[in-house]
């Protein structure tokens, strides 16, 4: 018997993703992004995203089937993100998945987006041994997870208490007069800058904060510190040292993200760390994570970039794992849940 052919649909934010896997073998991963349409608003606009998903879904699905070289009728199961994410955007993908499952008479697996980011590692020929710590960082999420079982046991260790890391990049870009999205802009501005020029604060790393927020993140104070730095320079009639500010800001983000992840690995005695989410595209975050993991004897896993940002392949991979474990499929009336807790892998 061959492994099940699973189609995965992801529409939680601004990327329309359709992926196809056979068991743990990736056959197709096609992504259509509506990022350009959001740029003029300085961020994702839920209504724009939902409409863009509607337009992109069918072509994306057809491109994925072609890439995988399979016909829709061969698909054994449909997996889809049902949360967390933007409600309107989620509904488009979920609606499409339900329609496909019903028309093809195949089971539907409505799964958790964040767990999907971890599940993508299943597509690696040698998946990371569990338990593992996962650090997921994107425009909308900054979460640290303990994963004992992808299908049954995912625990939230900590998350941001104010701005997501990607959001901090966007807001600091705004402060520095740079366009959206902020991540690549700040990376560009930081070239040649001194990351140690300005010692910006590392949120929730002081002993008094660690008691209550050991694995939580905060980027709001950092953003304020950058704002004050820029204002102070202007008040003195000085030019803002853009490259130094950008490099120092990025260093503060990379430092606190990787320090907390490595701390979790160390304290929970789990020497395995998986990174995921769009902010992992940031070279400095990857570099510092690699450096610190190596120093601490932690096995570090960073999926290829196309599988780090939102995509359908990770949802398909998680769906295939659920099928393999014999988990019962989701009911057809399963709703989109914009604040779905990470502990719920399958709805």
């Amino acid at each position, binding site marked *: 018997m061959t492994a099940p052919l699973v189609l995965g649909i992801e529409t939680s934010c601004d990327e329309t993703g359709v992926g196809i896997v056979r068991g743990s073998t990736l056959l197709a991963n096609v992504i259509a992004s509506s990022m350009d349409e959001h740029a003029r608003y300085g961020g994702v*606009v839920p209504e724009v995203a939902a409409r863009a998903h509607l337009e992109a879904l069918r072509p994306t699905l057809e491109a994925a089937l072609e890439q995988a070289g399979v016909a829709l009728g061969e698909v054994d199961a449909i997996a889809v993100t049902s949360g967390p994410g933007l409600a309107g955007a989620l509904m488009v993908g979920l609606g499409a998945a339900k329609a496909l499952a019903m028309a093809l008479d195949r089971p539907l697996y409505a799964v958790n987006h964040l767990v999907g980011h971890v599940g993508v590692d299943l597509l690696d020929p040698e998946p990371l041994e569990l338990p593992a710590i996962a650090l997921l960082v994107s425009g*909308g999420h900054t979460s640290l997870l303990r994963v004992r079982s992808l299908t049954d046991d995912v625990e939230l260790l900590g998350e941001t208490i*104010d701005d997501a890391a990607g959001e901090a990049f966007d807001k600091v870009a705004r*402060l520095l007069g740079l366009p959206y999205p902020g991540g690549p802009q700040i990376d560009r501005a930081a070239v040649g800058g001194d990351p140690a020029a300005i010692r910006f604060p590392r949120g929730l790393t002081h002993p008094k904060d660690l008691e209550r927020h050991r694995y939580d993140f905060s980027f*709001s104070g*950092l*953003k304020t510190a950058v704002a004050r*730095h820029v204002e102070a320079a202007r008040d003195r009639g000085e030019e803002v040292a853009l490259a130094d500010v950008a490099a120092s800001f990025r260093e503060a983000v990379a430092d606190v993200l990787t320090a907390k992840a490595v701390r979790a690995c160390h304290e929970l005695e789990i020497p395995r760390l998986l990174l995921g989410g769009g902010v992992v595209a940031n070279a400095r975050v990857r570099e510092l994570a690699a450096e610190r993991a190596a120093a601490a004897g932690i096995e570090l896993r960073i999926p290829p970039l196309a599988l780090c940002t939102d995509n359908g392949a990770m949802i398909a991979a998680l769906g295939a794992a659920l099928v393999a474990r014999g988990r019962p499929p989701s009911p057809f009336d399963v709703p989109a849940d914009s604040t779905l807790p990470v502990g719920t892998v399958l709805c």
Partner: protein
Amino acid sequence: MIELTVPDAASMEALGARIAPLLRAGDVLLLDGELGAGKTTLTRGLGAALGARGAITSPTFVLAREHPTAGGVPLVHVDAYRLPGAVELDDLDLDWAGAITVVEWGSGKVESLVDAWLRVALDRPTGVAADTDGEEPDEPRRVVIRGHGARGRELEAALRA
């Protein structure tokens, strides 16, 4: 008009917690202030006091986030910064009447959509004193609270009492 000095983040949360019990469905809070003034911090205190579900984090990315609360009336937390005007804010189809709505960056956009609101302006000291050196300084914020419309003035009076 109420003028206050709020010394630190914990006191900003406490101010939110003080406002919370006065609120009911249909009430609108406008939060003005630059990046880092404490708008989300105040909302976090308010949300905690209302027993809101889910972390009260910045809604910048999602524009609006709804939190169910212990009292049954949901808390809707909006960031209008990226919305060009009242029309786009109206497009979000918020349930103003059925929720307690907190809008960051809402001035100039909300006023044409609702009859009454409580405006809380947060002022963060800016300028040369910024010497952070790795610490997150807890700087005092100047807060000015003013009610508009009948219900807004009622809230302001209740807060003064």
